[in-house]
Structures are given as C-alpha cells and as structure tokens.
C-alpha cells in the first residue's frame, strides 16, 4: 500500500521561518530510518504559499490566483510518499516522527489509489534472469 504523508503548515512555516539546526538534524535522522526501513519513496518540503499559485477551473475558464493563501492550518508544508504493509504501519511510523514544527502541529495520512493490476507481461524482454532462476529453483526443489 502507498501512502501520502502530509505535513500541515503552521504560521511559522508559512512565514518562511527556517527550522532549528536541531530539528533539521532530527529530521535527517528520521528520514534515514525511513530509508533504511525501505519504505520511503519520496519526500520534500514546500516553500510557503507566498511563492505558490492556484488555478481555478470553471467550465472552460482558468483563473490564476497568486499566493499567499489564508487558511494556514490546511496548507501543506511538506510531504512523504511511503510504501507500507498496512495502515497501522504508516501510523506507527508517523508517530515516530519528530514534531516537524516548533509548536503544536499535524500530519495527515492519506492512502494513494492503486490500480492493483498485476498480470503477466507477455514479452520475453527482461525475463531472462527470471526464467533462468526459475529453472534453478525447480532443479533445487526437493
């Protein structure tokens, strides 16, 4: 299962306040754990919404609105994409995160839609090793 882990913005993050050296180091260590556990697929921090833009769609109309945006608590300040075995595992890993902000903060966990399409790909391309080891496996089966 894949999850998007969303770090919500705070006044500080929207003000472009830089994290302390300690927090940055703690986050670095936490990220390292995620990578070592093999679950982290991507992760990044976002600039404050001051540097962002929104495009409103209405029928054929497209209107561009420049940031900053007002609803601070609902904005995104950073995100990860994780591959976990279960919801519980994703929640457990979030709990292990250092508080990403100076004050109270919130992280949202959302499951990513997956097309569970795992069929057989009908082409000899790239099946070389597989077939060779299959033969090995059958030979060794006993």
């Amino acid at each position, binding site marked *: 299962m894949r999850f998007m882990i969303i770090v919500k913005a705070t006044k500080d993050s929207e003000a472009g306040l830089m994290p302390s050296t300690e927090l*940055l180091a703690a986050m670095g260590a936490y990220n390292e754990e995620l990578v070592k556990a093999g679950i982290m697929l991507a992760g*990044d921090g976002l600039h404050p919404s001051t*540097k962002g833009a929104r495009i409103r*769609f209405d029928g054929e109309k497209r209107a561009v609105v420049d940031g900053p945006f007002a609803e601070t608590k*609902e*904005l995104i300040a950073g995100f990860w994409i994780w591959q976990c075995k279960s919801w519980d595992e994703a929640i457990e890993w979030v709990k292990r995160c250092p508080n990403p902000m100076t004050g109270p*903060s919130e992280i*949202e966990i959302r499951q990513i*839609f997956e097309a569970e399409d795992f069929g057989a790909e009908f082409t000899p391309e790239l099946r070389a090793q597989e077939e060779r080891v299959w033969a090995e496996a059958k030979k060794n089966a006993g």
Partner: protein
Amino acid sequence: MRFMVMVKATTDSEAGAQPTQELLDAMMAYNEELVKAGIMKGGDGLQPSSKGARVQFDGAKRSVVDGPFAETKELVAGFWLWECKSLDEAIAWVKRCPNPMPGPSEIEIRPLYELADFGEIVTPETAATWDRLKTEIGDKS
C-alpha cells in the same frame, strides 16, 4: 525547479464519486503529454479523507484522529511532482489540464525546497545526510 501540483478535493471527490470515462481519457492524454515533455516525475490520486487519518503533535504527545475531515475545499485529492524551468511554466502546464472535477475546481502549485534554500542553518553533517538520502530516494539534489 521542482513543483508539487495539487488537485484540491471537492464534495464529489470526497464522496468517492468515480470520474467519467471521458474525463479519465482526457486525463490520460494530458498525462501522456506531461511524460513526453519530460516534466512528469510522479503523480497519484488519493482516496477520500474518510479513509485517512491525522496525527496531532503536541510536545511529546501524539494523538490519532480518523477521517473524514471537514474542510473539503482544502483537502488534496491528487497530486503531481513536476520538474519545470519556472513557476510560469508550471502555471502554463496546469492551464492545459482538463478540469479534474465535474464542477468548479482548483489546482495549487507549490515549489519544493532544495537544500540550498536552507543556507546557513545546515551543518555539513546534516547536508551530507540529506544529500545521501536524496540520492537514495532517487531525487535530484
């Protein structure tokens, strides 16, 4: 520059309404364009917030709150990661997107931090760690 491009949720997406075949086809064609232009670095749809959770941090406390969440218009329903030359280029690409929802909708574009943006506060050790992690998760740094 790398950008996160977010499709905002609507009452439809939060209700788990399926997009029409027509919209799916239009989206697929649009994605194909993004891939051919070489700007697409990833993208996915998110399940409605009723299937989500939030963890609230307060000092050492961690409390879990289950979805759904009320502020529909501010939730994310899907996202892309793009590599573009500028915010203007990203805006131009978003304008070409088919309206992702049946009614009025909104897409938000946010530039991502690069390590260089952290400037002074990064110790060499932290910089090295981040650099290595970036390499390992396959991001440009």
